[in-house]
């Protein structure tokens, strides 16, 4: 009888303490919160690393203000050079060796996809900052939050913008054949199909090609209302150059492949998907610019891409502040799942997450020149975003 009481008491003690044991505080000390940022800091996609430096700058700003409930953010960068094998190694290092509290990064979609199984298995919260492939966060994983507009959202947004122009029905596409391009093209075509529209012509311009004459002539022959260019930056330049040379005067829409500051000047009739609240020198981005620009590392110039990560970081800091001092991974995940219509002050639209919705950014704007030649941000054809 005495023995059974002892056993029962021990069992009850275990039941009461199990929730405390299950709360994971890895990466949190009295004075720091470790955040890992996997990013392409070197290699052929190193220009996208600007997003990681933007995240770093934002966290530096938070630390300068005193941190979060007395804890400073300790940033650990992991350079994967946009290589899948390196990305897996970086993820493992940040999780097991550096023991970060959470991951905030994911800039090359292919690498993010490769990292996903490792991160999902580890249970470490991961807030995807920039990569667009929707498969990174679908199917839903308990610990993964996709805080950037996915290519599915983007592809649908391209179609919505084009169709918002009255009479626009004939759509041409020029794109790469890689996974990144397909990630935009397929949802766009699916959405067009729901409106009874199929692309009139589709042509390919592969990476590294320095001439688009054949492609432009075929697009010109098709007399389309809009050409969607799902191309990386150098190839968009090649396409626009040859389109201008050969008189392809139709409206053009560029995907999220280029730093707009390099591509757009000045191209009337050329619109581009835009993931931010406002132009980076516009009033809507003033606060973000003031937080990030002065805190970029020496030699790092402010570009469009510098803002392509910090939106997710603003959400993270907001959630960490809401939780308070008793910080655990489980609480972080639970609080992220409650985020509703959260304005990051950087990204177009707002962020909303829930246990059944982990792709939190569902709105994309469009940028282009208005009739007065002023660069403007649009919600739909002719309708500018207002602040």
């Amino acid at each position: 009888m005495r023995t059974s009481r002892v056993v029962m008491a021990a069992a009850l003690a275990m039941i009461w303490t199990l929730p405390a044991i299950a709360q994971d505080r890895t990466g949190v000390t009295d004075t720091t919160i470790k955040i890992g940022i996997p990013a392409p800091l070197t290699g052929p996609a190193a220009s996208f690393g600007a997003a990681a430096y933007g995240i770093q700058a934002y966290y530096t700003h938070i630390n300068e203000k005193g941190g979060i409930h007395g804890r400073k953010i300790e940033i650990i960068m992991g350079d994967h050079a946009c290589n899948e094998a390196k990305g897996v190694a970086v993820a493992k290092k940040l999780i097991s060796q550096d023991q970060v509290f959470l991951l905030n990064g994911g800039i090359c979609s292919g690498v993010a996809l490769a990292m996903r199984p490792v991160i999902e298995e580890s249970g470490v919260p991961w807030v995807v900052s920039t990569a667009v492939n929707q498969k990174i966060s679908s199917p839903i994983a308990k610990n993964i939050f996709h805080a950037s507009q996915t290519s599915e959202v983007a592809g649908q947004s391209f179609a919505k913008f084009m169709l918002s122009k009255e009479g626009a029905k004939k759509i041409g596409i020029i794109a790469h054949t890689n996974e990144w391009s397909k990630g935009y093209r397929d949802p766009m075509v699916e959405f067009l199909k729901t409106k009874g529209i199929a692309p009139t012509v589709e042509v390919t311009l592969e990476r590294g090609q320095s001439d688009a004459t054949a492609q432009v002539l075929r697009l010109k022959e098709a007399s389309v209302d809009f050409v969607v260019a799902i191309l990386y930056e150098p190839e968009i330049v090649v396409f626009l150059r040859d389109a201008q040379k050969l008189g392809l005067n139709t409206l053009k829409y560029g995907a999220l492949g280029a730093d707009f500051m390099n591509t757009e000047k000045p191209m009337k009739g050329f619109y581009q998907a835009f993931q931010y609240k406002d132009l980076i020198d516009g009033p809507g981005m003033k606060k973000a610019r003031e937080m990030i620009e002065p805190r970029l590392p020496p030699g790092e110039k402010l570009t469009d891409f510098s803002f392509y990560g910090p939106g997710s970081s603003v959400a993270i800091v907001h959630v960490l502040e809401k939780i308070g001092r008793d910080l655990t991974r489980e609480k972080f995940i639970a609080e992220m799942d409650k985020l509703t219509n959260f304005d990051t002050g950087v990204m177009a639209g707002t962020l909303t997450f829930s246990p059944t919705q982990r792709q939190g950014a569902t709105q994309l704007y469009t940028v282009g020149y208005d009739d007065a030649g002023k660069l403007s941000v649009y919600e739909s054809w002719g309708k500018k975003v207002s602040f």
Partner: protein
Amino acid sequence: MLAQLLVSGVAQGALYALVALAMTVIYRATTVINFGHGDLVMAGAFLVYLLVVLAGAPFLLSASLAVVLLFALGVAVYKGLIRPIMAGPHLALAMMAVAVGYALRGLARLVWGREVLPFPKVLPQGTFMVGPVILAPSDLIVTGAVIATVAILAVVFYATPLGKTAQAVFQSERGAALVGINVSAFQSTMWGIGAAMAALGGILIAPVTLLYPDLAAATLIRAFAAMTLGGFGSFLGAAVGGILLGLSELLVGAYISSKLIDITAYLIIIGVLLIRPSGLFGRQTIVRV
């Protein structure tokens, strides 16, 4: 559409020809195919960018300086890296050339790697019509540069003592040395000239696209295809091969599928090696024993 494709194909092919001609100069001198040549093209373009944008120098001066500096680089690469292993297997020479190319690319990434830069608009802008065909000044400049280069190389290599030296060294280095030709000095000069021509290629390619470290990677394989089609060692072959490749790409892209443009160069290499390995203008080597 056909007329435009033909004219644009010639202009595009001229770019490939320019790179192929430079590779042919090096090949004629040392029988080495410089697989790092694309990165010399990139280096030339970045040098001009450095001088024009960062140092504020006038374009013509910058271009001239870039050509001179690349010449010096070509000589240095030959003397420091190629000549010490010339007696070894050809594969080692090819690998060294690749390594030099990657080293240059890595250096460019170290300095600029995270930026895709707009090259200064140094060529005349705008377009003009010739009948139904639209031309840009850059089309004429590049094509003119190729014609001039072929002419100069033809005169130098076939009508001057330097050309005789080149032929002698190409046929037999030992024989050339025995008759008193300074083979090493000749080969280093040819590497310098090849690198200088790469700079010229970079200066003409970069204004039509953006400037980034992988700029000329795709052009290299096309230049190699041009050399294969035209015949290794033939300047006329390199030029004609480049232009035929440019025409093929555009015609295939317009009339069959734009998805095939990227593999046209590879298909040409395969076809030529199977059907006529010596290319259009190359000579088959007959060894009598």
